[in-house]
């Protein structure tokens, strides 16, 4: 047992949490349908499921953010009512959200103390908090400087602050919501180390993820949800990856990879010493040199926010370069307007599709011509050709299986996945010669993501040049012919797939060059 003297006394330590028959209904949908779930002290229980399977709803109920329509929650076999996150925290339940809840301009100590009463009444007790943070950090290997400002910390370090926050508040059951999504492979290893240490000390951990290999590596038991229902709970040692995938989607999945070798064709896209300024807060690009050939997928790996977005925007004409040149099929396109590049059959799947890639209050049909509305196919002397726009929409709805009542439906009333499909359908169907795909599978569940990957491979096999920007290393490794790594706006290195290992790429992602690696 750890000594949590600051917060102990008011509660007993959690030995087990049991959720029984949890049902939660939202207007028109059953998010959780009689779900049973339990977690014990000293174990990692993974909660697995696709987007919309009901994982988040179940955990939000446990953390007091939602209230179940029916079903009970027991802690140490005693019935409890959790009406708010405050209740949950008082009971010893902590949650590490996917998006951190930290104030960047405050120090680690100040963030931890935020919202808690001071032990000195009206005066601050930051020195005591700071001491306690060091104690906790020591116990679980959460190396952190209590006086560092949040903005100075890497994403992995910020996550540790979140964990410390929960521990400081006396949590002995932690819900980790997709904690590995923002980390480099090395940081993931460190996190797993911390988690193992905590489990040894008697913590219960709920690990939400959709990365199967991580679930298999870290968890003791795994529960799979599908469409709001529990599919089953099994000891992790008794299951394998393909079995879990089958549970998640309801049938077997082939994991797509490019296996065939393709000869790199002519150079489609070439960046020469490209630099650019970025928006406030993000890093720009510094002297980027990159060549993209026809018939290849060049994967761009990197931790989020290292210039991926700037790179994509510079290429498609949405951001000005401050120096350097960009060539598209041997033509200098530096500073060219977006509409000119569209006509050169450059397709762009933007990262924030909901904001940049579609218009919510336009119909599906209108969204499907967004980038080509002034092409002769869809307009004639400034007049829209409604009939051919409609036919185009109907065709793509069928081809890409966009689930919509009709082509006249407002895009905003479609589900997120189907909105993504509108963007993909539009960008992929125009027979592009070059594709910039930024996080094309983010937010999609396994089945839909595999479909998108398949589409990218088809494009590549047809001779299209594809730049795949992704934070999902598995995806990069599955699809890319070559892998480039971006770190703080610089290309750290470009490796052929044969040479690339996760370790090499991971170190490059962290900014460590091969010479330093040795």
């Amino acid at each position: 047992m750890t000594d949590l003297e600051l917060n102990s006394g008011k509660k007993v330590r959690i030995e087990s949490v049991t959720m029984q028959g949890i049902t939660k209904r939202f207007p028109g949908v059953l998010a959780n349908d009689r779900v049973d779930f339990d977690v014990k002290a000293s174990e990692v229980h993974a909660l697995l499921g696709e987007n919309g399977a009901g994982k988040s709803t179940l955990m939000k109920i446990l953390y007091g953010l939602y209230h179940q329509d029916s079903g009970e929650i027991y802690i140490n076999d005693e019935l409890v009512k959790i009406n708010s996150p405050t209740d949950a925290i008082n009971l010893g339940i902590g949650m590490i959200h996917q998006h951190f809840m930290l104030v960047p301009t405050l120090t680690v100590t100040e963030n931890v103390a935020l919202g808690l009463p001071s032990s000195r009444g009206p005066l601050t007790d930051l020195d005591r908090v700071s001491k306690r943070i060091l104690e906790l950090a020591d116990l679980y290997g959460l190396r952190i400087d209590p006086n560092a400002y949040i903005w100075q910390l890497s994403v992995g370090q910020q996550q540790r602050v979140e964990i410390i926050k929960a521990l400081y508040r006396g949590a002995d059951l932690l819900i980790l919501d997709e904690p590995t999504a923002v980390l480099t492979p090395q940081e993931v290893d460190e996190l797993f180390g911390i988690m193992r240490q905590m489990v040894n000390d008697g913590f219960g951990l709920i690990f939400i993820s959709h990365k199967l290999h991580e679930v298999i590596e870290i968890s003791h038991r795994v529960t799979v949800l599908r469409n709001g229902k529990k599919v089953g709970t099994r000891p992790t040692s008794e299951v394998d990856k393909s079995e879990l995938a089958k549970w998640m989607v309801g049938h077997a999945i082939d994991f797509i990879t490019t296996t065939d070798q393709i000869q790199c064709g002519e150079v489609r896209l070439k960046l020469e010493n490209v630099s650019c300024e970025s928006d406030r807060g993000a890093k720009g690009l510094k002297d980027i040199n990159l060549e993209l050939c026809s018939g290849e997928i060049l994967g761009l790996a990197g931790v989020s926010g290292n210039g991926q977005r700037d790179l994509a925007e510079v290429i498609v004409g949405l951001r000005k370069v401050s120096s350097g040149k960009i060539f598209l099929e041997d033509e200098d396109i530096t500073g060219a307007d977006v509409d000119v590049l569209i006509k050169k059959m450059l397709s762009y799947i933007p990262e924030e599709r909901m904001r940049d890639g579609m218009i919510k209050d336009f119909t599906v049909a209108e969204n499907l011509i967004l980038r080509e509305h002034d092409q002769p196919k869809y307009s004639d002397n400034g007049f829209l050709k409604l009939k051919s726009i409609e036919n185009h929409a109907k065709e793509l709805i069928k081809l890409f299986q966009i689930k919509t009542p009709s082509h006249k439906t407002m895009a905003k009333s479609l589900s997120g996945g189907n909105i993504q499909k509108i963007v993909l359908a539009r960008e992929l169907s125009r027979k592009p010669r070059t594709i910039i795909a930024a996080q094309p599978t983010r937010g999609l569940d396994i089945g839909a993501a595999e479909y998108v990957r398949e589409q990218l491979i088809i494009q590549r096999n047809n001779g299209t040049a594809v730049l795949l920007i992704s934070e999902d290393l598995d995806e990069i490794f599955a699809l890319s012919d070559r892998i480039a790594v971006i770190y703080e706006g610089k290309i750290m290195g470009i490796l052929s797939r044969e040479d690339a290992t996760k370790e090499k790429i991971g170190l490059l992602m962290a900014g460590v060059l091969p010479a330093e690696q040795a």
Partner: protein
Amino acid sequence: MKSRLNAILDALLPLFATLAALLVGAIMLIILDVNPLVAYGALLNGAFGSSNALAETLVKATPLLLVGLGICIAYRGNVINIGGEGQMIVGAIVATWFGLRYTNMPGWLMITLAMMLGALAGAVWGGIPGVLKAYFNVNEILSTVMMNAIAVQLLNFVLTGPMIDPIQSEKASQIPQTARLEEAYRLPRLVPTRLHLGALIAVGLAILVYFLLWRTTLGYRIRSVGQNKFASRYAGIKVERYIIIALMLSGALAGLAGVTQVYGVNFRMITDGSTSGFTGRAGYNGIVAALFGSLHPIITIPASILFGALLVGANTMQRVTQVPSALITALNGLVVVFVVSSEIWRKKRQQKRLTIAIEDQEFDEFSNEIPGHSVEEAS
């Protein structure tokens, strides 16, 4: 089913808001010791009671509709044009100057040219805030209101100086007004009332604006820029250009409204020193009419007529019941407040519905069907 009910409710909302405003007005009438039923009866009679009354209503509705159509375009481009008053004034000044300067032209030619010039002047007056908004991020609400102030001073200047009626300039009274336009230049009357061709032109333009917004690439771009600037840039649309175009079109229609007031109703310009002396507040009331019409050019037609009726009927009501004219102003104000707030409420409700719908869908993505995928059973 529920969504259809919501749609009907949304469409009828301005009507409910008007009724609610009239209800508050009734309380004010009772305080003034006037029977609200008598008062509102007079209002109805004054607006629709005779062919003359009806014609007056339509005459009042014409500038409201024209300004309102401009508001529809501006709103679709997500710019708010409060400058209808100023745009009407400059449109009218330029058209009147032209009509007085060039005599003995065929009537149809003069009317066509005057309308084009008036629209152009309105477009320039609307375009200036457009440029300021697009390139310097100057709030267009502020700049259009300021352009109104400039326009009214311009009006006062030209009517006391360069464009004053030569007869008046010789008199001691010096009433600030222009000379009358020649008979041939006046917009043809439709029936033996004051109803003029401008009303038909406005209805025709409503259809044209509808066509523009939903059937042309120009309208597509204006709506696109209005909905989402990021996605518009991504679509290769030059966002700044279409902000300016939206405000220019809006200004052109208001300018045209000014022209119809001179060529169809007054045949001269006269000022009492304020904007409303010439426009009759059509530059503001047109905004309300457009909101009334859910910012849809076709629905704005009946909305303008309804609002025109309210303006005309209120005058009759004042004569019959002898209520102070301040009450009429208050009543109009009440309608504006209620309609505008109901519109804000509707938007919030819509947002809420949307949020709920999106939350629902979080659980509905992709269900079990996986497209384009080989399905095989694991052994």
